[in-house]
């Protein structure tokens, strides 16, 4: 392997770092609502949305310009009187389901949501066989 290859890889790394500065630094001054309840809503919505140019961060954690745009967008929508669900649907329509850090409840995601609890039930059911033959003291 030559050094050129290494430096190409390195450039790629640099670009991804400029796109999304590594140190995660949430919101800037002036972004926030004065009203605490509205701001709390904006923050919790931000935590549910993915920063799509970053590796794996919510827009609440990310310093990337796109994340900031999305945060402003959410606040506009809140100001316009939309509900949380309406805002999430709005974002999903624009950017796709990839933007949601919590996948939707639908048929495609059914295993994701149901399997963990089914496994517990199955485990407890299997466990019973250990006890079936157990005599009472």
């Amino acid at each position: 392997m030559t050094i050129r290859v290494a430096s190409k890889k390195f450039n790629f790394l640099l670009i991804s770092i400029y796109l999304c500065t590594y140190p995660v630094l949430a919101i800037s001054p002036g972004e926030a609502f004065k009203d605490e309840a509205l701001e709390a809503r904006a923050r919790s919505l931000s935590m549910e949305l993915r920063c799509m140019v970053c590796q794996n961060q919510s827009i609440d954690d990310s310093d990337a310009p796109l994340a900031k745009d999305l945060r402003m967008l959410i606040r506009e929508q809140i100001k316009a009187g939309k509900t949380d669900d309406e805002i999430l649907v709005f974002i999903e329509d624009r950017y796709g389901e990839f933007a949601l850090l919590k996948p939707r409840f639908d048929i495609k995601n059914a295993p994701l949501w149901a399997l963990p609890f089914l496994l517990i039930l199955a485990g407890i059911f299997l466990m019973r066989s250990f006890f079936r033959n157990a005599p009472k003291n």
Partner: protein
Amino acid sequence: MIAETGHFAMILAFCVALIQSTLPLYGAHRNRQAFLLIAAPAAKLQFLLLLWAFAVLTVKFVQSDFSLWLVTANSHADKPFIYRLTGVWGNHEGSMLLWILMLAAYGAGIAHFSKSMPDALKARVLGVQGMIGVAFLAFSLFTSNPFARLISPPFEGNGLNPILQDPALAVHPPLLYAGYVGFSLAFSFSVAALMSGKVSPDWAKWVRPWTLLAWLSLTLGIAVGSFWAYYELGWGGFWFWDPVENASFMPWLAGTALLHSALVTARRNTLHSWTMLLAILTFGLCIAGTFLVRSGVLTSVHAFATDPTRGVFILMILGILVGGALLLFAMRSAGLSSADKNVPFQPVSREGALILNNVFLASATATVFLGTIYPLVIDAFGLGKISVGAPYYNAVFVPLITPLLMLMPIGPLSGWGHSEISPVIKKLAMAFVLAVLGGLTVLIMSAGHQGGAALGVGLSLWLMLGAVADLGKKIRFNNVPLTRLPKNILKLPLQQWGSILAHGGLGVMILGIVGTTAWRSEVVQAVVPGAVMKISGYEVTFNGEATVSGENYSAERGEFSVRRGDVDVALLKPEKRFYTVERQSTTEAAILKNLAGHLYIVIADETISDGMASRVVRIWYHPLVAFIWIGGLIMALGGVAGLMRREVKSFSSDSV
């Protein structure tokens, strides 16, 4: 020339591993003593050869020998000494060599310390260790050679990712690998037993200490990683449900289940097949984690050193080693289960609690696995791209694990075989009442708004007080006069502290998690010198900033006076660093650390506010956050205590 001896030592180690993975197994199969006895010296030789290779690579990094491609790509002569040293494993190739070295070290450890083990079992265990060694040495030599040379060496290297230039790099990866690799022994023990087709009653007792060692290393490794992320990433998050974190969390969960099932197997001589299956799966998850991290199939904030071709190789290793082991398990485990002593369990008993623990931990492991790979599966079926992030885990993992936490204190207090429920209730009544009171207090003080925090505080108290009740039972608190108690505490065998510390430590950790999650406060402001910010009873004054230069970076350093009431408590100096070689910036938070909470300051960009050049400052108060890592440390201490048994008693004398 020296570098070539390192490379050559690796090749020799590969050959030794080939011998170690064949002749002793043949010897054990045909009962040929001469072949069988090759295992131990081969394991030790393999270790020594790899130690040489690793030492050579370390020397090359310290010397900044840029004729080595790896040193050029990941180091720089101006880097402080400690990062030239730890930089050896701050990259893919070097960290793989460390991984393999530790694998060999565990093998040598078995060869050296397990004197009481029958030769045939030892030969088989080391043989399987040898196979793992062959697989990963081949991976290293053929896809990730750390000793590759450059024909025309440059004068300077590319440097190391500044995020990794941190003292934590010295301990985080080695601890983590000691954990991952440690679980290989549980794997090898299982495969060895399956190969021989029989399992001795002492089997689980040989497995358990090694599993415990791996578990406590992994616990510490994860805790250090979490603390590192907390202070380095710039806002005080301690866990991100990132795929790479999940890659370490899955083996931890499975390994915790393994520790508990091995306890049942060792004590009651039953559940052998399940314990073996868990051992195989735990190590499988370690390799799968390595695959996820190194292959780049998942995007992660830890995305360093990824390469798809390597991913395919690791996937092959996973398929052959774990697939082979599972096949063997499917063919042989039925025969083994006859070794299980058919003792009937009462639902209310230590065994009952431990099996329930396994049901929950196995489901929790599966959940994290599901969340980590589900986006890949959906993508592979062409159903689109989805993300599974923290909100999913909060919604699924937390409710799933809560019942387990509720049942946790009951386990150690119930007796083996069968147990009356009433004495257990009696011993835990006080803990239960106090925990409920604690939770209710939080609920009332927050006027019913913080149900989650109330549950968390209740659970935390329940676990900590449950651990105290466990101690109370072990020192026979109710049956001896108070004056004898100090003596009883001192005389309590260290091993008995294992469950007390591990379970109580988890309670401490939960307190920290709840504190920072529920009560964190935050101030974001653009400030000019002289500005005062108020947060959680602290008054923070921005004194100004200066440009400073470090060994290999320049930095903007802000200075903040912190007052509480009328007292000056600290002078904090957060930095925004720019690493000149790597051309990357990092934030260095300044943290005022108290047990009650951390005051966490970072400085961000310059901006114009009200027509004046100002600095964006972010301050957080993280209440109780230190308990997260203190709890982790206590849990690991529990692991250490568990290792402190004077000798492995034979099964018959211990089984009553």
